[in-house]
């Protein structure tokens, strides 16, 4: 926020006396404003804090500090505010909060950012208090106007009443602005909730069904050029030399410039930019590149798995217990690179004019990207504005501690060497070859079963890159995102060792929907299922028997899902087979049972039963949607997806013809149960994803005799 901007803001809202910091006015072009209506601040509006604004037209606008890319924070955070204000749902509007790492920080991160399924969890009290403060000030204004005792007033559906007088929030807005801002506003007791806990329509469904929702790629500025960048097919390669003669012949291409990310083609249209890029001839320098193939990387990781790593968790003496066991079981699980492949590829728009820059971007860490632009262009922070746009999916891809898109769009502007506006568009080929993958991972597992069938020893050695290394979240030492889920299992295993062998590659890793749980859930839940089978135990009862005393929430979801699926221990019925998995991630507890058949050598998943405990269910509609989507996302990946490096390190999948997405005919029926809870809410964006792959693999073993040791099920060339 700048002094100047704030003065402008105050000038535009004359008459208001506001005791707390306010956000800068969101631009009309912001995704939310376009999606949800005009966001200009009208005369007489009331803004008790950085999150809530009440306008004289009786609309309430919530500034959402979290980016909306389908996971539902616009609806969810507005619900919290509406609940505490006793507003009418139809008067709620949502806009993206501007970039401000202090005002809009994620309380779990310390900077503004979205990720780790934290949006609801960290906003839970903050947004309720924001709503409660607004309500208290509106009530105080009404009491003053009517000479009533504030404590006797009632509020319902956005109207304050004392029995004989009534006024809408809009009518009270200006007077409310003159009231004192409560420091610690009281929030409701959960028993008083009327909106929280019930299905609520999403605020963005209409604009996303009629084409009016505005995303980054939909931003056009006067004189704007579109820029595409030729990048290496081998990750980490750099430009040695290039010939742009043919590219510059393409009508519409205005310039070609080398930037740190590759060779940028500037054009008056996207079609011309793409044609110009095709016509470029580039020689690459492979000095710093990853030139090994995926097979060579897997071989190196498997070799690394033979030696102990950093201890992540240790209970008892696993080596001794396994050595003394009646039955020893071993497995090595291999997980490929994965791309996030959000359907809107990465993009950004930057306008530079008279030493000021404005950015439009689906930034998950907006402060980081804004900072990158500021730094690359040598501007003052006060002269850079970031508009956080709706984004067409992310799944972690837009959560960029390196701010590489901010750096890239700024490098494009810098290389242009003039004022102007540019839109950076990544194609699908850029997306799939652009690294920031879920890292290749190997799990080496050993287990021991005693003569009485009990699991006496468990070892899980995880080999992969650190995602956190070098980011602001790096705390040094063992990186929990590499093995989260392998540690802190809900099962009481008397002798257990989890260790981590860190690998370093020139291929940038990144958190991918559920991060470490993407592989730990598979390795642990398939291996456990195999141990239970060897011990002659039922997969559901065997798990229940193993659960720690304190794992009550795990127990509840597993019991619930077994009840939903009518689990009676039958693993195969006709041509159908059943499998189960249980996995907690991001403090949400999820159990799934699947029904599958064999469709020509690949599992066909017919039905998924899922039980989740995510604390208080703020909006069951959104929770179910996230579980449905999380299952589809995880299933398509488990069946089809691997990003492979071929001979010399060349990325082999360039588009959806070879990096295959799940399609509607492959989507199972999904039945979701949400456990009643009075615990604070936890995330739902990611926790639905981890259990699906192991549940399917366990069913597949029931049908065919083995669970895959390497994902995906349909491997390239298999």
């Amino acid at each position, binding site marked *: 926020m700048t002094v100047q901007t704030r003065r402008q803001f105050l000038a535009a809202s004359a008459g208001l006396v506001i005791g707390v910091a306010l956000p800068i006015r969101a631009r009309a072009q912001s995704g939310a404003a376009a999606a949800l209506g005009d966001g200009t601040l009208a005369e007489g509006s009331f803004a008790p804090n950085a999150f809530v604004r009440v306008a004289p037209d009786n609309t309430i606008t919530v500034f959402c500090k979290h980016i909306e*890319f*389908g*996971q539902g924070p616009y609806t969810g955070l507005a619900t919290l505010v509406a609940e505490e204000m006793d507003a009418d749902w139809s008067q709620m509007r949502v806009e993206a909060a501007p970039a401000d790492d202090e005002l809009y920080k994620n309380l779990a991160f310390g900077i503004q950012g979205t990720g780790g399924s934290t949006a609801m969890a960290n906003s839970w009290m903050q947004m309720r208090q924001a709503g409660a403060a607004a309500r208290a000030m509106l009530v105080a204004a009404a009491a003053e106007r009517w000479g009533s005792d504030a404590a006797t007033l009632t509020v319902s559906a956005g109207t304050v009443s004392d029995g004989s007088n009534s006024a809408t929030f809009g009518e009270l807005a200006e007077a409310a602005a003159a009231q004192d801002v409560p420091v610690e506003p009281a929030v409701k007791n959960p028993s008083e909730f009327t909106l929280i806990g019930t299905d609520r*329509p*999403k605020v*963005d*469904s*209409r*604009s*996303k*069904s*009629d*084409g*009016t*929702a*505005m*995303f980054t*790629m*939909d931003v*056009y500025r006067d004189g704007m050029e*579109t820029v595409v960048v030729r990048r290496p097919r081998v990750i980490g390669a750099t430009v040695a030399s290039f010939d742009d003669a043919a590219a510059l012949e393409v*009508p519409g291409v205005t310039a070609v410039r080398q930037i740190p990310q590759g060779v940028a083609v500037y054009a008056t*249209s*996207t*079609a011309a930019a*793409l044609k110009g890029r095709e016509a470029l001839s580039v020689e690459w320098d492979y000095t710093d590149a990853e030139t090994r193939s995926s097979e060579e990387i897997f071989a190196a990781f498997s070799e690394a798995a033979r030696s102990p790593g950093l201890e992540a968790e240790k209970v008892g003496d696993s080596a001794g217990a396994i050595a003394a066991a009646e039955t020893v079981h071993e497995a090595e699980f291999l997980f490929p690179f994965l791309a996030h492949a*959000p*359907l*809107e*590829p990465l993009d950004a728009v930057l306008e530079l004019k008279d030493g000021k820059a404005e950015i439009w971007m689906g930034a998950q860490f907006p402060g980081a990207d804004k900072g990158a632009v500021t730094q690359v262009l040598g501007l003052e922070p006060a002269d850079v504005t970031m508009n956080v746009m*709706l*984004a*067409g*999916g*992310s*799944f972690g891809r837009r959560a960029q501690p390196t701010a590489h898109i901010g750096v890239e769009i700024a490098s494009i502007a810098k290389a242009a060497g003039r004022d102007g506006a540019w839109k950076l*568009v990544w*194609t*699908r080929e850029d997306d799939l070859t652009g690294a920031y993958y879920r890292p290749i991972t190997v799990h080496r597992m050993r287990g021991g079963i005693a003569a009485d069938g009990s699991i006496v020893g468990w070892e899980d050695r995880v080999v992969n890159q650190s995602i956190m290394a070098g980011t602001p979240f790096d705390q040094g030492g063992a990186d929990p995102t590499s093995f989260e889920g392998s540690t802190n299992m809900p099962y009481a295993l008397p002798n257990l060792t989890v260790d981590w062998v860190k690998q370093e590659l020139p291929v940038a890793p990144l958190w991918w929907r559920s991060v470490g749980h993407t592989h730990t859930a598979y390795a642990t839940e398939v291996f456990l299922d195999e141990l239970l089978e060897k011990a002659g135990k039922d997969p559901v009862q065997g798990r229940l028997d193993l659960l720690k005393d304190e794992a009550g929430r795990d127990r509840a979801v597993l019991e619930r899902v077994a009840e939903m699926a009518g689990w009676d221990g039958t693993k195969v019925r006709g041509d159908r087979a059943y499998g189960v998995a249980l996995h907690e991630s991001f403090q949400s507890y999820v159990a799934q049972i699947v029904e599958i058949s064999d469709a020509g050598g690949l599992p066909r998943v017919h039905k998924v039963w899922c039980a989740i405990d995510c604390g208080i269910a703020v909006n069951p*509609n*959104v929770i179910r*949607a996230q579980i*449905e*989507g*999380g*299952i*589809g*996302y995880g*299933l*398509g990946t488990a069946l089809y997806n691997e990003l492979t490096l071929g001979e010399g390190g060349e990325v082999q999948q360039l*588009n*959806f*013809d070879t990096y295959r*997405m*799940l*399609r*509607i*005919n492959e*989507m199972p029926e*999904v039945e979701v149960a949400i456990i009643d809870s009075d615990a604070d809410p936890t995330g739902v964006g990611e926790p639905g994803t981890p259990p699906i792959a192991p549940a399917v693999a366990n069913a597949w073993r029931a049908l065919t005799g083995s669970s895959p040791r390497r994902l995906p099920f349909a491997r390239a060339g298999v």
Partner: protein
Amino acid sequence: MATFTVNGKDVTLEVPDDTPLLWALRDDLRLTGTKFGCGIAQCGACTVMVDGMPRRSCVTPIGTLDGASVETIEGIEGPEVEAVQAAWVGIDVPQCGWCQSGQVMSAVGLLRMNPAPTDEDIDNAMAGNVCRCATYVRIRQAIHDAADMLEG
């Protein structure tokens, strides 16, 4: 130079004939509801109607459209459109929303041909439209809901 109509209006564009319709719609006509997802007709985010049938605009050169009628999400009309959009909103189909213009186009195309589709009909008509958020459970339900609305 191709001349065609977009949402009922005559259009003649000063761009090369091999320009994909997708980029002509977005860059030249600023009809941004039609989305780019893959560029090779694998995802369906760019689906528009050409002479009443769903078509992937990312692989449709405008030079092939002389005399054609193009409808996009901004201009498409009719009872099937209203029913599909009402059904989409009614059960909150969209998550990120990027694919949904294309999904709506394909769903409208299906319902215009087949007012009472089975699950299998839906699979056949919609399998070319990827939803990376996997909203497929709700897409299927919403198409049934739209069919019910049209019947009622």
